[in-house]
């Protein structure tokens, strides 16, 4: 167990190291921190002095080590625009994004498993054909277009659901404001969650269907039938459990991908999450915020991937974690 864990963690640290190098390189090349600090009306001598004081004339390695040291202590610089620590700015926006991802994940899990299983069990039924047809259309519509379509139909035409912002949120803990405590919050999160789910849902339906159909062809499913086991038990215990193993791996990667799609969804719905913030930071050339976003998102990717690997190891009896460590 320990060795397996250690291997994963070491790999995660290596990836984080590369990300921090990239982030550092961006920080060094994007914008001029002096101008942000003192403006342009300062003599060259004073500038040189300030450069020395800020350590901008130190060697690359010294500067990187200082950057990494600060980053490890949670100091990712101060946002030019917000005049606040960049990490704080992001952490304030993070809950909005996480709740959006959470909402979309609920939709994906809730719909993809039953739809995927159904289309695998009855591949020739009319309903299955309709589901599969819709899924390929779903894959072909970019997230932002789905989002616009939803706004047009549900907000502009019918006015059923709000089209932007988070609505009423309730403070939970720390920076955490939640949408799930008020009716207004729920109404606001519906469209963005469905829009975000719209790209992944068809992918998952197709993935689950394909895996499930393969499993249903397997010898052990045939054997279960030969033992006289009831169909529901064959589908949901024998087959689904084997289907979900590969789905978990793909799913983990997709959670990371969803963070990228939040940028699109948040832009369309003006959702005050960190994706929306990131685009604003790019337009303002708010370097510390860009760098902080890069590191936080990189961190989220690395952590989810590591956790997914670990879960896969736990769920799959043939990858025996306990023994790998011994």
């Amino acid at each position, binding site marked *: 167990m320990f060795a397996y864990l250690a291997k994963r963690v070491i790999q995660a640290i290596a990836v984080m190291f590369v990300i921090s190098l990239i982030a550092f390189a961006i920080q060094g090349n994007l914008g001029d921190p002096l101008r942000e600090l003192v403006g342009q009306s300062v003599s060259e001598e004073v500038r040189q002095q300030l450069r020395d004081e800020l350590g901008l004339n130190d060697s690359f390695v010294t500067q990187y080590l200082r950057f990494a040291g600060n980053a490890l202590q949670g100091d990712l610089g101060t946002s030019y625009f917000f005049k606040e620590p960049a990490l704080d700015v992001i952490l304030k926006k993070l809950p909005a994004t996480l709740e959006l991802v959470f909402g979309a994940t609920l939709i994906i899990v809730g719909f993809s498993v039953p739809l995927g299983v159904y289309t695998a069990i009855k591949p020739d039924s009319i309903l299955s054909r309709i589901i599969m047809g819709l899924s390929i259309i779903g894959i072909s519509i*970019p997230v932002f277009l789905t989002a616009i379509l939803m706004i047009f139909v549900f907000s502009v035409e019918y006015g059923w659901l709000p089209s932007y912002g988070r609505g009423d949120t309730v403070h939970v803990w720390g920076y955490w404001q939640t949408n799930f405590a008020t009716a207004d919050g729920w109404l606001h999160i519906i469209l963005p969650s469905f829009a975000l789910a719209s790209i992944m849902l068809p992918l998952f339906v197709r993935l689950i269907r394909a895996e499930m159909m393969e499993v249903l062809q397997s010898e052990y499913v045939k054997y279960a039938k030969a033992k006289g086991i009831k169909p529901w038990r064959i589908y949901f215990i024998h087959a689904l459990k084997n289907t979900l193993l590969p789905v978990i791996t793909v799913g983990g990667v997709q959670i990371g991908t969803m963070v990228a799609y939040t940028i699109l969804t948040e832009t369309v719905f003006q959702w005050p999450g960190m994706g929306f913030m990131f685009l604003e930071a790019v337009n303002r050339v708010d370097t510390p915020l860009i760098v902080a976003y890069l590191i936080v998102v990189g961190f989220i990717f690395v952590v989810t991937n590591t956790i997914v690997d670990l879960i896969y190891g736990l769920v799959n009896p043939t990858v025996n974690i306990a023994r790998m460590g011994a």
Partner: protein
Amino acid sequence: MSTEMLNPKQQPSRWSKAWNSNMGYSFRRNPVAVVSMVVFLLIAAASFLAPLIAPYDPYDPAQIDIMNSEYPPVWINDSLPEFLLGTDDQGRDLLSTILYGTRLSLLIGICAVALQAFLGISIGLIAGYVGGRLDSLLMRLADIQLSFSTLMVAIIFLAVTQAMFGSETFNRYAIVFLIAVIGVAEWPQYARTVRATVLAEKKKEYVDSARVLGFGPMRIMVRHILPNSLSPIFVISTVQVANAIISEASLSFLGLGMPPSQPSLGSLISSGFDYIFSGSWWITAIPGVVLVVLVLVINLLGDWMRDVLNPKLYKG
């Protein structure tokens, strides 16, 4: 009867060979595939012939009059007959702009996938053929690359590039940046597939005999191994073109791709989005429909191809 007359029968042309092959047969029998192919060819032809068939040149400021902005398509009241699909917010003829935009979207999609394929195939061949440490290093890299979403990498890369060069320089080279970033980010798909074929083929006798005959590794890989991985490469490429077009549209929508002055379908949709609340839905909707139809037919063709080239035969 001259022999010339008989020749076509004895040696069927490449075209008729393809038509009568397994694939041609299943193509003819599959109405979805036929319709998709026809629609795709129509869109592709119309967009690449845009300079010839478009009623206006959207890149020519002399032909654009801001006074003409936001005219609806002709089937709606208050439209102008000369603008078949209406005009956009800058007064450009929407039909012409869409034709030019589709051309850009397709061009970027295809070039990006060509780059992906080139990188992925080369890396896959090398990894599979050389093996050992280099192989495991490259595949490890592929794993990590795959675990990061392409869109995320592209957004960050383009955002930083844009901030670094300023939007003017960025806009000038936007096509190159888009192709580069979408092309570089997706190589692992190809690399993995090609590597798997190389590993499978490497064991077979003909590769050994080619080696014994003294052919170099380059020749063995390109002449003998590569042809065996063509059908998966083909299937991947189709889906990848669809994905690349979506990625390009998404990036342009975010303002990280093609500028409004030279719009692709994504940037056109983006510029129309601001007017959706004021009722000018067509600026977003029509390019949106074109984008979806384009991607959909490519995906449908990809699906069909996967069914044909990867036939899971009955295990009777």
